[in-house]
């Protein structure tokens, strides 16, 4: 790694955090709990999702500990089922879905479009409260015995054969779903109606495009999950019968409705992360993103195509062969826009001035690991291979590669990239680069063996497995402990940096984008005056001209 860096900090002996900023504007608990400021809400979200991330992570630790040995000796099989179910529910609904949109998106989107706040600040606050209520419900569920259906609540297991807390979990997810809907709704309205003068659609940062696409999915897809959960609750309480074969219903109907949301959900999870990567790759290669239009349209294409592929989660469940054919073909289509993005980022890097600060390290991790995860998705989209690989550890590895190797790395990249803007302080670079590398190594050790395990035939969601799979499982658990260290480190040094980090100044990364033209941390109203956007996105020449003007006009 070269010592070259683009970081430009103000003179530390004289630099100060601006006295008036969104953190200091008002004091007191109520000013936070009743805030309308999108940046404060983003901060509240950041604290909440970090809390749930560690609960989900602890559950993951328990899973990996159990899988060290072939027998189900650490916990009973039923308990193991509860552990992986809660791990899935928490990680999907309480961490991944809100991760980038509710934290970084909430923080940045008004600034990136040049507005003073999101369109509906009260709805934004409501969204956070719904998340917190849902979180309490989920914790209640865990405390009172948990649920063991798997996060996918497959019927008729979840409706007729289990006596665990399906209803309270279902209701918790229902509430969390509305939190997500309101966030997405707010974003769409803001992006359409609150852009500053001169901010045409094609001058928006690609982060905004990605969040816009994800928001469309949130608004259109999540309600179907909501009604599906209502039907599950009705099935369990009143015995409505829509999913009960004995009463004439169809268990597969549940799966159709569930996956109609849950497949777009994975795009809700990944698209904002891809937006982060666009910003980071551009900044750390000092080049505009190659093929802006292609990246923008591919985000929307992923959103649209994403609605038509859901039954690839159901190939072996009993849908007709013709449906299998249709959905398999469509799944091949949906991979194309994602690949387009990877190509565009690669071409952005080509002949760029690349430096390797922490956000860029995470971005490189993303590009490699997401590519592997995405390609294995294509393998699974082909129904012939899927029949053998589904419900094995191959699937587990696939979605962890895209979600953890992809999304979580993108989230960490974004957190590090915008940390100086958010807090006014820089994180410590060396230890953060170490953490990124540790995470990357730990991740690969944890999840790559799982591809092999899946191909060898180890089923997922099993507490006990045949002894010949033990070696790879031990590898995986060892990797998980390294991964855990990699995730703990940022908590420590980011918290440390709040007090002791270097003062960042407005634009430590020399990045383009409206958010970097204001103070760090920003004012409550973001801009003293609504800006006028007179240049294209990622316009580094404009930035240079700005800097020359600043130097000249002292």
């Amino acid at each position, binding site marked *: 790694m070269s010592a070259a860096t683009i970081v430009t900090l103000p003179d530390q002996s004289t630099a100060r955090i601006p006295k008036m900023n969104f953190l200091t504007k008002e004091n007191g608990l109520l000013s936070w709990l009743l805030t309308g400021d999108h940046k404060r809400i983003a901060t509240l979200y950041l604290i909440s999702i970090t809390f749930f991330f560690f609960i989900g992570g602890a559950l993951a630790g328990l899973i990996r500990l159990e899988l060290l040995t072939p027998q189900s000796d650490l916990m009973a099989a039923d308990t193991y089922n509860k552990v992986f179910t809660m791990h899935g529910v928490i990680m999907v609904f309480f961490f991944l879905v809100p991760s980038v949109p509710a934290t970084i998106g909430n923080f940045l989107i008004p600034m990136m479009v040049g507005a*003073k706040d999101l369109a509906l600040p009260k709805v934004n606050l409501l969204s956070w409260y719904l998340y917190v209520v849902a979180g309490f419900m989920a914790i209640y569920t865990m405390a009172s015995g948990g649920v063991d259906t798997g996060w996918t609540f497959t019927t008729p297991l979840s409706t007729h054969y289990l006596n665990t807390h399906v209803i309270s979990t279902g209701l918790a997810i229902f509430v969390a779903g509305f939190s997500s*809907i309101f966030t997405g709704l707010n974003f769409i309205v803001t992006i359409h*109606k609150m852009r500053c003068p001169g901010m045409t659609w094609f001058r928006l940062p690609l982060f905004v495009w990605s969040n816009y696409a994800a928001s469309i999915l949130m608004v259109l897809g999540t*309600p*179907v999950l909501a*009604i599906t959960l209502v039907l599950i609750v009705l099935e369990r309480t009143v015995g409505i019968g829509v999913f009960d074969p004995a009463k*004439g219903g169809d268990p597969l*109907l549940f799966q159709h409705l569930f996956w109609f949301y849950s497949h777009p959900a994975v795009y809700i999870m990944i698209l904002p992360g891809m937006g982060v990567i666009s910003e980071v790759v551009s900044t750390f290669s000092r080049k505009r993103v190659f093929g802006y239009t292609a990246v923008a349209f591919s985000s929307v294409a992923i959103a649209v195509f994403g609605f038509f592929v859901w039954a690839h989660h159901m190939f072996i469940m009993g849908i007709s062969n013709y449906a299998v054919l249709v959905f398999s073909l469509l799944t091949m289509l949906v991979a194309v826009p994602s690949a387009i993005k990877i190509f565009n980022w690669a071409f952005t890097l080509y002949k760029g001035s690349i430096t390797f600060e922490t956000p860029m390290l995470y971005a490189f991790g993303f590009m490699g690991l997401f590519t592997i995860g995405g390609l294995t998705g294509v393998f699974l989209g082909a129904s012939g291979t899927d029949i053998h690989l589904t419900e094995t550890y191959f699937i587990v590895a696939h979605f962890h590669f895209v979600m953890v190797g992809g999304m979580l790395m993108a989230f960490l990249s974004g957190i590090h990239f915008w940390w100086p803007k958010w807090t006014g302080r820089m994180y410590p670079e060396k230890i953060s680069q170490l953490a990124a590398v540790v995470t990357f190594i730990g991740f690969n050790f944890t999840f790559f063996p799982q591809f092999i395990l899946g191909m060898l035939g180890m089923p997922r969601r099993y507490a006990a497995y045949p002894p010949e799979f033990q070696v790879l499982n031990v590898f995986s658990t060892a990797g998980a402990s390294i991964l855990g260290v990699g995730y703990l480190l940022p908590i420590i040094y980011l918290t440390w940096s709040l007090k002791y980090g270097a003062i960042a100044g407005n634009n430590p990364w020399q990045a383009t984008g409206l958010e970097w033209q204001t103070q760090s941390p920003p004012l409550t*109203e973001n801009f003293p005056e609504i800006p006028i956007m007179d240049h294209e996105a990622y316009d580094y020449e404009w930035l240079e001209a700005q800097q020359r003007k600043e130097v000249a006009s002292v």
Partner: protein
Amino acid sequence: MSDSTVTAQETAGSAQAHHGEHPPYQRHHFESVEQQFDTTNFAMWLFLLTEVMFFGGLFMAYLLMRNWYYPAFVEASHQLNIGWGTANTAVLISSSFTMAMGVYSAEMRRKGALVFFLVLTFILGLAFLGIKSIEYSEKWEKFHIPGIRYSTSAFTNPQSDPEVYKEYHDKPLPPDMASKTELYFFLYFAMTGMHALHMIIGIAILGFMIFRAKNDAYTTGHVTFVENFGLYWHFVDIIWIFLFPLLYLISRY
């Protein structure tokens, strides 16, 4: 896209106005009243989209079950009183009319007319719920409450229900098909119940609006709340427009 130039024009126009001279109901993050109106209107439309998809799941379940168990659905739907159903449809359509007139009154800044139409809408909404409760209690009387108080005797032996038999002369259903009528009633209660829940919420908000309308809240130029509520009310009407033929008019010949 055109809305960016619209925004620019609005902002340019209002940039001439001084900062402090915006109406009291304009929130600080908006540049103009028009922007606030446009934005909240769009937000309400997006919320209605979520409602469309929410009901969509129920419609999918209904579509499937009706197709699979058509004879059961036909005979079960004969148990619904078409008079009440048509009356309810007329009531809701009229309430949509009165709501639209309410929005018009607010736009024309006529407080008396606005309150009048809102109260009419409120009453019509209550009338709808009243008729619904008559229908629901009739279901209770006849042992057609699925899961709780249910009997298929009206379907295995249609002549035991002379009122309905007189009109439709249904054939007796075999027991396994007759048991599927319970599924019909589940969907009936789930769909009309979900619809009624939305009506109740709407009526509650209407009550709040009538109170505020009396205090001139909507007749000084700030029609947003009334207009957006109107959208919600019309949407609830549209759901019923589909529920009525699907549940009541399956086959009455």
